[in-house]
C-alpha cells in the first residue's frame, strides 16, 4: 500500500477524534444515546452527516440498550456500524452487548470510560472496561487523542476481518481524554479508504435479507452452542496477532503505530517493569525517563489489548524481570486488588515467581500523579532488591 499523505492537523477533543475516526470509515448506520462524557461523539458524527461528509443513517433511540440492538441488527443486515457510550449507558446495554458478540456482529463502539453505578460518580475511571470483561468483545485501551482516532479506524479493520468477525470496544479515559483538546492529525479520506479496502476483498459474510429467511443465534442447544462458543474463543485468540499485524500495517501507511497488543517502553534492559493502561501511561513514561536518569533500570508496558488478554506478549515482556508493579484505575471486587494486576498475576507460570505489586489509583477523577508513579517505582525497585513489600496499595488512601 502507498504511504499516506500528510493529513490536516487540528486541535480536537478525544470525543471529536473518535467521531472523526468513525466518519473516515463511512459507517452505514450509527446511533448513540447521549451520556456524559461521550455525548460529543454523537454530536460530531451528526454534524458530519449534516455537512454531507458521510451518508450514515443516524438512528434516534430511546436508550443505550436500543442503541446496541440497532447497530447489531444493522450489522447482521450487512452494514458497517458504529456507536459510542460510557459507564451507565454501557451497563444498560449489557445483554445487547453480549448479543452482539454472540452473533459475531462486527460492531465498533467508542467508550469514554467512567465509573460505573453504585456510587454516583460523573467522573473518570476504568471500572466500565472491567464490567465488560467477559462479554466476548475485543477491548482496546488507548492513551491519547491521536490514538483514539487511529484506533477507531484500526478497530473496523479488526472487527470486520473475515477471520475475526467480532465487535470491538475502543476505550479512552473519560474526562481526561474525552474533553482534552490536543493536536490530532486527521488522515485524508482516500488514505482511510485505502486502509480499509482489504475488507472488500474478503468473502462476504452471511446477512439478513428480506425474503430469504435466515436466523441468527437460534441454534443454541447442546453441542451447537458449544461449537459456537468454541469458534468465538478461537476467533478471540486469532485477534491478538491480527491486531499486531493491523497496527504494523497502519504504521507503514500513516507513520504511526502503537505496538499492537502492548507497547513496550525501555523494557529491554529493564530490571523492573511498570504496567499501565490508558492516559496515565503518558505520565508514567515521563517518570520512567526521570528514574532512568537516576540510574534505576525501569521499563514500562502499556496494556493496549485487554480482551483477548495478550498473554504471550506480556509474558515475553515481563519474563526475567526482578519485580513488577501494575497500576489499575479500577478495583477487582472479591480479590481486593487491581483487575489488571490480577490477570497479570495469572501469568506467573510464564513469568516466574517475582514480587508483583498492585496499585489502585485514579478512581473517580483522582489524578494518577508524577509523585504517585515515583512512589510505585521506588517500592517496586525496593521489592526487587528483596526488601519486604505490601502487595496491594490504594495510593490516595495512604496520603
Amino acid at each position, binding site marked *: 500500500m502507498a504511504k499516506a499523505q500528510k493529513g490536516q492537523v487540528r486541535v480536537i477533543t478525544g470525543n471529536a477524534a473518535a467521531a472523526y475516526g468513525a466518519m473516515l470509515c463511512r459507517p452505514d448506520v450509527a446511533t448513540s444515546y447521549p451520556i456524559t462524557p461521550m455525548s460529543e461523539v454523537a454530536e460530531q458524527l451528526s454534524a458530519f452527516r449534516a455537512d454531507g461528509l458521510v451518508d450514515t443513517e443516524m438512528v434516534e433511540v430511546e436508550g443505550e440498550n436500543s442503541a446496541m440492538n440497532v447497530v447489531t441488527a444493522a450489522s447482521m443486515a450487512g452494514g458497517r456500524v458504529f456507536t459510542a457510550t460510557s459507564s451507565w449507558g454501557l451497563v444498560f446495554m449489557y445483554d445487547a452487548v453480549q448479543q452482539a458478540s*454472540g452473533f459475531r456482529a462486527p460492531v465498533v463502539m467508542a467508550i469514554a470510560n467512567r465509573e460505573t453505578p453504585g456510587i454516583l460518580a460523573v467522573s473518570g475511571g476504568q471500572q466500565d472496561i472491567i464490567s465488560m470483561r467477559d462479554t466476548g468483545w475485543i477491548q482496546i485501551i488507548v492513551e491519547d487523542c491521536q490514538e483514539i482516532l487511529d484506533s477507531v479506524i484500526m478497530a473496523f479493520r479488526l472487527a470486520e476481518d473475515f477471520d475475526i468477525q467480532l465487535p470491538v470496544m475502543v476505550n479512552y479515559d473519560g474526562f481526561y481524554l474525552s474533553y482534552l483538546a490536543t493536536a490530532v492529525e486527521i488522515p485524508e479520506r482516500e488514505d482511510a479508504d485505502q486502509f480499509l479496502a482489504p475488507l472488500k476483498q474478503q468473502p462476504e459474510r452471511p446477512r439478513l435479507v428480506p425474503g430469504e429467511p435466515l436466523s*441468527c443465534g437460534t441454534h443454541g442447544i447442546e*453441542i451447537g452452542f458449544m461449537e459456537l462458543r468454541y469458534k468465538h474463543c478461537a476467533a478471540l485468540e486469532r485477534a491478538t496477532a491480527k491486531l499486531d499485524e493491523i497496527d504494523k500495517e497502519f504504521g507503514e501507511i500513516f507513520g504511526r503505530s502503537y505496538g499492537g497488543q502492548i507497547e513496550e517502553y525501555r523494557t529491554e534492559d529493564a530490571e523492573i517493569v511498570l504496567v499501565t493502561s490508558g492516559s496515565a501511561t503518558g505520565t508514567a513514561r515521563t517518570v520512567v525517563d526521570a528514574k532512568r536518569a537516576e540510574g534505576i533500570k525501569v521499563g514500562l508496558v502499556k496494556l493496549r489489548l485487554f480482551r483477548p488478554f495478550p498473554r504471550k506478549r506480556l509474558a515475553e515482556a515481563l519474563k526475567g524481570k526482578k519485580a513488577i508493579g501494575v497500576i489499575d484505575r479500577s478495583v477487582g471486587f472479591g480479590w481486593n486488588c487491581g483487575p489488571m494486576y490480577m490477570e497479570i498475576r495469572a501469568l506467573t507460570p510464564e513469568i516466574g515467581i517475582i514480587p508483583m505489586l498492585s496499585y489502585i489509583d485514579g478512581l473517580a477523577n483522582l489524578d494518577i500523579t508524577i509523585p504517585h508513579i515515583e512512589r510505585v517505582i521506588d517500592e517496586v525497585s525496593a521489592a526487587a532488591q528483596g526488601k519486604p513489600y505490601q502487595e496491594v496499595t490504594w495510593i490516595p488512601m495512604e496520603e
Partner: protein
Amino acid sequence: MVIKHKFILKTENAWSDANEGLLCMDTGSWRTARPVLDKEKCNYCGLCALYCPPQCMKDMGDYYEVDLAYCKGCGVCAKECPRDVISMVPEGEFTDG
C-alpha cells in the same frame, strides 16, 4: 487438544436457515392451537411468513401453507394477517393432532 467434533454450522456465527439448523427441533409438539388459513381470501402478501418465528410458512406460489411439524402455535401469523385470513383453532378439534 484434538477436536473430533465435526462443525454443524458452516459459518463463524450462528446462522441457520430452513434447510438446516433452524427447523431441527420438534417445535410442532409445543402447539395447543394451529393456524388455519383461508386460501381463497389470502392475497399472498407474505407478512405471516416474515413474522413467523420458526419460519415455517411454506410458500405455495399464491398462498402460504403452515408446516405443522414446526409450527409452535404462537399465533403471530394470525395476529399480523391484515385480512384476518388466519384463525387459530384449538388442537383438540383435529383428529390428527
